[in-house]
């Protein structure tokens, strides 16, 4: 089947098997390997991408379901060689070690702060609790997301 959608602002069209989930499509068919697979049943959150503004587990939707949507992956969070304020805050707070869960953390946090730039600590923790990290103990990730809020308040597209 053919799936056509916007990927990080560019139109893509790809032939996929009906059973292929979006994560495999992004990684294997479109070469966007920043989206990681940690469990393939929607628990770990590493594969989170932003579909039409919402954080979505790309292992839980089929590629063909993305038809007509706008999909943003970790590769699409920044458009030049500079880190975004969210990425900069992750680095400053040492919010990543092995880096495997990081793409999902970034997309989840980006979707949250875009909608709710004033999210409080409890809200940030609650939303991030859907993403598993085995290295950091989460504390620096929460600190980084809280610090990045300021950038989302100032502009609508950091």
């Amino acid at each position, binding site marked *: 089947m053919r799936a056509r959608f916007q990927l990080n602002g560019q139109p893509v069209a790809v032939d996929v*098997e009906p*059973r*292929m989930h979006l994560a*495999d499509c992004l*990684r294997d068919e479109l070469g*966007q*390997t*920043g*989206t*990681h*697979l*940690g*469990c*393939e*049943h929607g*628990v*770990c959150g*590493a594969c989170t991408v932003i579909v039409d503004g919402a954080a979505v587990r790309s292992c839980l939707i089929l590629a063909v379901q993305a038809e007509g949507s706008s999909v943003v*992956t*970790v*590769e699409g*969070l*920044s458009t030049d060689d500079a*880190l975004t304020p969210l*990425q900069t805050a*992750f*680095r*400053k707070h*040492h919010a*990543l*070690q*092995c*880096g*495997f*869960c*990081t*793409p999902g953390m*970034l997309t989840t946090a980006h979707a949250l702060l875009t909608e709710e730039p004033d999210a409080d600590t409890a809200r*940030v*923790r*609650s939303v*991030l*609790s*859907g*993403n*598993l*990290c*085995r*290295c*950091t*103990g*989460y*504390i*620096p*990730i*929460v600190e980084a997301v809280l610090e990045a809020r300021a950038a989302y308040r100032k502009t609508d597209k950091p």
Partner: protein
Amino acid sequence: MIGINRYIGSPVERVEDFRFLRGRGEFVGDLRREGMLHAAILRSPVAHGRIRNLDGTAARAIPGVRTVIAAAEIGAVPRIPLRLLPLPGTERFLQPVIAADRVRYVGEPIAVVLADSAALAEDGVGSIALDIEELAPVADRRASGKNEILLFEEAGTNRAMTFTAVSGDADTAFREAEYARRERFSVQRHTALPMEPRGVLAEWDAVQGRMTVLGAAKVPFFNRDTLAAMLGLALTDVDLIENDVGGGFGARGEFYPEDFLIPFAARHVRRPVRWIEDRREHLTAMNHAREADCEVEIACRRDGTILGLRGEIFIDLGAYVRTNGLIQPRTLAQFFSGPYRVPNVDITSTALLTNKTPSGTYRAPGRYEASFFCERLIELAARDLGIDSAEMRRRNLIGAAEMPYKLPRLEPGGPAVDTECDSGDYGEALERCLAEFGWEEKRALQGRLIEGRYHGLAVACFIEGGGAGPKETARLELEADGSVTVYVGSAAVGQGLETVMSQIAADTLDIQLDQVRVLHGSTPYLNEGYGAFASRSTVLGGSAVFEAAKLLLEQIRAAAAVRLGGSTEEIELVDGRARSISDGRSLSFAELASERLSVDTAFANNNKLTYTYGSAAAHVAVDPGTGHVELLDFLVVEDVGRIVNPLTLHGQAIGGVVQGLGGAFMENLVYDAEGQLLTGTLADYLIPTATDFPTIRAIALENHPSPSNPLGVKGAGEGPIIPVGGLMANAVASALASFGAMPNRLPLSPACVWLMGSVNESSD
């Protein structure tokens, strides 16, 4: 010691982060090769059985499925050797890389299917007709010890190994003691669970007769040697390549069956083959850890002075002795007494085979379990004797004047594996912890009921023997642009190795951090290397880089002396330039690069471990209605000798503590009586999330540098996880003291805590 310190000791932001934050990391699952086939593995659905028949006809008939490889295609099936503690007798229990006629755990590999896509390979696995005659399983270590059902009939026993750790005369100490108490404790089976599943991509170059394996981790050189022997290839014809690695924690990177099967498959079909583990198979295929129980006793004087520890520990090891499977049993025995002065010790630990996934090391192997057992015993003794928890520990910590302090003698092993606490002031770390935590003020809360919840506090102390030998290698090369490339035998598993090695090299060479490039892990870089285990990378790899950098400076000085005239004493090296003191003329490192300056070196530590040590304190509130335990405060203070990067060190501490809390409260690999794993997904196997433990503090000290390496650093990746189990159990015990709670088994699940707080309540 290094004189110049621009980078060492500073919270340098990591050089690795740019690629990870932008989705440009290269994990093994991100790699593809032209003509690559995908592998999926048929695994045993039963815990114990004999393979009667395996028929891959239907699988092979699926369009896109290329072949099915089982034991018959492999021929003589190699068995995986031990990397650590290859003691006599263990050869009987090594794991074959594929099951030929007997399966011994759910998840054991039986066949490999190769296909054009991973989905087709999985279709192939589902189409193999497998006929297994089920045998009665050995479901736990008690059944194992009876030897009624044997995993290896020819061995005549399920007992894989027994270690003893002895010092002094425990029997006499117990006979003469004023106080003694005996208890039973247990720690559940859990696992390291790195977020990236494992993967292997193997490429066979039929023309050159060379094998290249991507996805290596932790110990690529040892695994290269192992694979070369199994494939009958020269070491020089096998390369193991380390890509980005999504977490290790001891479990990832050991030699597993797939580390043979995928390269074999690639050679068999003469095409690149990739296998990426899924999470379900990960939970039965990768090493499990920690399952142990014990009956142990403590002897004290009335003033709380510990006189002796003795008892028996049993480890449910699973179906085979894997590469590092004996580390946990060894450590449980030898490190049982932890940071405490215990003159008389007699501990036995026995590893028993069961029909479960084999176990191996997981961050602080054996130490986490031993600390739980020992801290519970000490706490019970303190309570019986009416001594404050902190005072009990204060009285028994090994003193600074007693360093070095010998730990008990281990057998088998003998003097060759003797180890001693190397340096430090354990009491100092305890006092700092108590002061920062506010122990004196908070202890009034012990057992108090406040707004429906019972409050409890606990304190525990630990040592981390890290920096295991024998050595590590490094090569430094001066590049044409004056930058320096560092090749190091250490491996990166996500802990920030590139940043830490860059800091050490840049400081020693007195050049900018971005003038250093660190390449690590992969076998083509160096002739030998030892890798990332036992918190050894900064200690041994860092020291090797430091020594190599000093030698490179000497080469630069000598080359500059020739070019500028005069003796080497007249050359000073500052900020990437060599300058003649006599006439002020200078050359940049780039100008000297034409001399092809390069240094190869190794740093050996004579197998002397470094001993990081510390104390931790915790404050919990227990809801007796739900069994929920809220962690209100947690503080760990550790002395690591010397801090290279406070940012990454802090990350190791906090991350380790949270893993330990997962083990204390939630993580549990549950098997049923048939040997089926009941927690085979991340929806069943629970690990901490962002809402569980928001309040954890860590303080690192560098008051007592290691005497055994030039940097003064001590291994610091595993300390803070060690006391967590004991700490949580003792805090819950304190909170529920009025119920007589005895939290002697981990995990402290809500149901288990609720029972401790409700059974006695209803009988009031």
